[in-house]
């Protein structure tokens, strides 16, 4: 599925939710591609999850690319489970408020990589916001 979310040309609120299923320490940052600032980030106690929150106004988000960046540390996970943790990582970004309503985008195999002897997973979900 293409990572595109259609928006209305009005000032309606667009919301986002990020659901992360992992056995590691996780952090999620949502930002606009190319921007220094962050729009949203997960709270430490939510371990990468972001509850349904306001992302921005529809007409301000048109023609931007929203990225949910994830970093996951797998300290304390046995070596023989590191690949399983990578394979089974579940990340679902859900957008609300566009003309097509609620739409979910799952992280695919090409959107995550392992680092630091497989103890670190970095993943990113990019979604183009089009009119």
């Amino acid at each position, binding site marked *: 599925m293409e990572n595109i979310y259609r928006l209305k040309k009005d000032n309606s609120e667009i919301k986002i939710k990020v659901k992360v299923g992992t*056995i590691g320490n996780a952090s999620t940052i949502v930002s606009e591609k190319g921007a220094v600032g962050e729009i949203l980030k997960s709270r430490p106690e939510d371990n990468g999850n972001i509850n349904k929150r306001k992302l921005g106004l529809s007409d301000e988000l048109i023609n931007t690319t929203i990225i949910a960046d994830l970093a996951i540390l797998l300290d304390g996970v046995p070596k023989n489970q590191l690949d399983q943790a990578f394979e089974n990582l579940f990340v679902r970004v859900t957008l609300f408020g566009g003309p097509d309503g609620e739409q979910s985008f799952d992280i695919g195999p090409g959107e995550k990589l392992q680092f630091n002897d497989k103890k670190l997973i970095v993943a990113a979900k990019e979604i183009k916001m089009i009119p």
Partner: protein
Amino acid sequence: MMMRHIILHSFLGLLGFNAFGQKTTELADLKVPVSPAFSLLDFAPKTIESPGTIKAFTTSFVATVAKAGGIPKNFAFEFSPYWFFKHPNMDIYKYHGLIVDPVSLNEVSFTEEDNAPVKKIFNLKQNIFYGLRSTNLSFGSVFKDSSKKLPVDVNYIAYAFRTNIINLRNKNAVNKLTESILSVNSALQKVQSEARKKCKDLGGRERIKCIGEEITKSKDSVLKATRKNFMDYLMIRPVFSADIAFASSTAFGNNSISNSKSYRTGGWITLAYNQPLVSAKKVKENISNLIECKNYVNAFFLFRILKENATNDFKIFTKKNMIDLGGRIEFEFDKFSFSIESIKRMDNNKKGMNTSRTVGIIQYKIWKDFFLLGTFGKDFSEINNLVTLFGFNWGFGENALNTPFNK
């Protein structure tokens, strides 16, 4: 030069003692085996396939069967089925046996859709059964041709499971573990945020690679310290744990399904209790007192059952049933430990043949996974039953000192 000879001869001498000792019952034989299917067949495979996904498992298994052109020979598989699948609701708390206390959440009001920071009381409880998720299945085969013990070719296939059913941890350790998860998450996010800024203009895999490399090379002292704390709390020895395993095997004469016979069946239960020699008050005051505690009194309980259809010709079979029941109490002072172990062995076929093993064990940890071991006492059987075992014992991995029945 002379000194080197003395050391070498002493070392070889000790190994000699150890090798002699191996003719008797090994301590390792009595604990819940790491891979029960392979232990049951007295077989140590050179390579064990550990597929991480259902796809990898199916591919490996089909390839093994196809290569054999029938009942496969000499293979070893080991895996945890639970981790074959994605678990969208899985998180680090559940994985480490922590569950959100619903009472504490009821005390808090927060708006799910509010963008403002929400203060959430974080009170967690233990899920002592969390080890069940990592239940491990193993199966393997050993092919022995007719030149070996039996006059026919026999392919032995074994299948087993092993699991940790209870793992109870110190309450203070659990609270600290929870706090450390939050601290690591905060520190990780700070480092991730810096990395993201450096890679902000990139997209796709280039971006992921850039962020991953930036986090990997980060020298952030807070992240480093919080990760260390998390591991320290995680490695605190459980107060109580229970492990079970069951394994069974079938022998196929001439590798034929029609000529099969149940071979060995075994079951193991191990209970372990670890009491640190530090007061609860001191632990409550400062958890470091528990982390740094090197002195323990450990108690272990063992139950093992083993059944076998013994044969010399694959025609006439004799049933052998054996039950081991016993325990061990161990005093551990940093690198040094001594313990007394007593096991009662009951032979169901020959009531008069019940026997027991009672030994004292002294162990000194020379360095990580390398121990000097001494055992003295009475082994099973009524004749030739003196145990005098002295030598080195070394292993690989994260073997805990002085917990032979531990997983």
